[in-house]
């Protein structure tokens, strides 16, 4: 997919975003533990672009998405949307941006209120932002339902009557109800059957082409991410370790973690698997409460050196539009 994107037309820029969760224990809350869920993430998303964000469970992908839409308060850093920093504005001022930024959720069973009809679910953003009333509102809802491949008769039904894929489409219709510019897709397909995943992803792409949407696509399924994304960022333990164009990332992954992730994609060829190109990572992801010093990945990295323990690698542009945070890049030169 060759989209013509203006390299200077940045819709969203995230600068050194941090989100730490502090939990208090003890009688008066005198002891605290800090979970560094997102710890200094920076990236830009161009208008009309899809940025994929991958990483294993607990690496902070979803937290990044939820922090951008201000479901969580930002610990530090900036979120510049359309030229305005929305990381510190009050929830009341945030309301106008809620029309421009929307989110699609992971679990199609939990993301729809089971006590509301589909029409009311999709109509809720219309009501909140006073977009339309009465017959006009009804028409918008019907249009949205048809746009996501459902019938207008479905408006009077309840979510539990729908399948997972249909529910996810209702979720998408709700996100589209306010005609947003930017949609954060928080693992929208990981709870769906493989056959339905393709339907939903293709629909998201069609919608992007028709409406000129920009996506932040969070997932852990690498092949699906490659299919939909223009660029892909790889996260590990709250940090972005590599960011590159989708094809380049797959063809020449730079960071050892990306290499390991990519080698784990199953290849539909028994012989290829036997030849053993898989890099198996040892151990578990360290706890984000107490991450390793220096490079967060060093405890599981097979190239780990002494410097990795002491110095945190910088996120450098190793080739045009290909960023990576690894000491191997600086030492070799």
């Amino acid at each position, binding site marked *: 997919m060759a989209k013509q994107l203006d390299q200077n037309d940045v819709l969203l820029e995230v600068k050194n975003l941090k989100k730490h969760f502090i939990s208090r224990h003890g009688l008066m809350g005198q002891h605290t533990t800090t979970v560094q869920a997102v710890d200094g993430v920076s990236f830009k998303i161009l208008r009309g672009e899809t940025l994929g964000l991958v990483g294993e469970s607990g690496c902070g992908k979803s937290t990044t998405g939820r922090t951008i839409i201000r479901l969580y308060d930002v610990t530090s850093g900036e979120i510049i949307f359309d030229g305005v920093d929305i990381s510190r504005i009050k929830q009341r001022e945030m309301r106008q941006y809620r029309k421009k930024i929307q989110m699609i959720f992971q679990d199609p069973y*939990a993301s729809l*209120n089971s006590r509301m009809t589909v029409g009311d679910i999709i109509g809720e953003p219309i009501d909140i932002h006073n977009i339309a009333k009465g017959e006009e509102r009804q028409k918008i809802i019907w249009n949205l339902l048809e746009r996501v491949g459902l019938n207008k008769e*479905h408006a009077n039904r309840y979510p539990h009557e729908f399948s997972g894929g249909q529910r996810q489409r209702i979720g998408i219709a709700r996100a589209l109800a306010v005609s947003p510019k930017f949609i954060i897709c928080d693992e929208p397909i990981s709870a769906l059957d493989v056959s339905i995943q393709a339907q939903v992803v293709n629909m998201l792409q069609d919608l992007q082409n028709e409406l000129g949407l920009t996506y932040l696509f969070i997932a852990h399924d690498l092949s699906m991410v490659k299919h939909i994304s223009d660029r892909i960022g790889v996260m590990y333990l709250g940090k972005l370790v590599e960011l590159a164009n989708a094809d380049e990332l797959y063809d020449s992954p730079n960071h050892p973690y990306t290499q390991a992730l990519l080698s784990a994609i199953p290849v539909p060829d028994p012989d290829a698997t036997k030849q053993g190109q898989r890099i198996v990572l040892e151990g578990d992801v360290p706890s984000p409460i107490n991450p390793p010093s220096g490079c967060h990945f060093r405890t599981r990295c097979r190239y780990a050196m002494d410097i990795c323990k002491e110095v945190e690698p910088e996120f450098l542009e190793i080739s045009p539009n290909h960023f990576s945070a690894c000491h191997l890049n600086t030492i070799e030169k």
Partner: protein
Amino acid sequence: MSEQVISKDLWEAIPKENKDAEIISRPSMTYWQDAWRRLKKNKLSMVGLLFIVFMVLTAIVGPYVISHDYSTQELTLANIPPSMEIYQVDEDTYFYMHSEYKLFDVTKDGVLVEKIKEIENDMTNRRRVYNIDGNEVVLDYSYAVKKAEDNPEGIKFKLLLNGEEIKPFDKVHNKTYVFGTDALGRDMLARVIYGARISLLIALVATLVNFFIGVLYGGISGYFGGQVDNVMMRIVDIINVIPLLLYVILLSVIIGSGLKSIIIALGSVYWVGMARIVRGQVLSLKEQEYVLSARTIGASSMRIMIRHLIPNAMGPIIVSMAMLIPSAIFTEAFLSFIGLGVSAPLASWGTLANDALGGLRSYPYQLFVPSIAISLTMLAFNFLGDGLRDALDPRLRK
């Protein structure tokens, strides 16, 4: 193995209209319709529900239908039981002998006419003489105080009609006072129905208080969480540790005992359990993705609470309501029983039970009537609550 070639013209594209046609043929059913369907299958709770409906209707229209007033005293007709042993005098003259050795004129099918005045009352020989339609009826109740050897059969009295001993003719139901009368000759049925009114009033107060204060308090506490939750729940803890009885006694001192102080006492503390339940529900529900989604849309906290959180917590709310109502009714009955409740001539089930204690050995029906009313009502609410819990929580379904 040869590859089979399928010619291209065998393939035909589905027209676009049909491609995404997703039809649901199952009839649309809301959560409540589904719950009602499940509840209907539970016989015990349907019986409970019917009983509650019956009781509510009786309490509302009963006083207008029955012929007796709850407060009118008929001292000559005191302590008449619901079931009477009658004696025959002649073809259509019957009388009932009360256990206080008084005779009453009754019809054959149990309608109480009046008390029969004796023509002679010999209190030293324990003998009363009556004249019923020209027949002489002698009631000799001296046997009750005779020694065992003089009274080998252990009888208490003898009734002589024109000199001949007569035995009970029949046992009939009291048609005039279906549940009998109390020590002041007031109709028990009317009093029990008035008691039901008070119990239902208490149930209504408990429901309203639970719903408005309990649900809102718990909802706010759970939704905002953190310090707000901490402070609000500690207040709940404090209210919870002070016994209800103490509240009522203190309130009675200030505003006088009666229904008002019970209602205020129940109203001020009865929402505590509900607040806890709702808080727990909201704490878990607010992390659900549909709540996050409502927040990303820009919904206000109030809207999230009313449109999303409370409707989804409605199942447990209704179930605990159905369980709290009987305990409120029982609390009122208990407080009335120990004398902190409504004052005469108003009747509550608790005061009725208390009034019956004096004549318990002679007139146990006076205690049975209100006790059975309390027991049946509590059972009905509990059965309904059990059924609702099963119907509203599909996870508990068999």
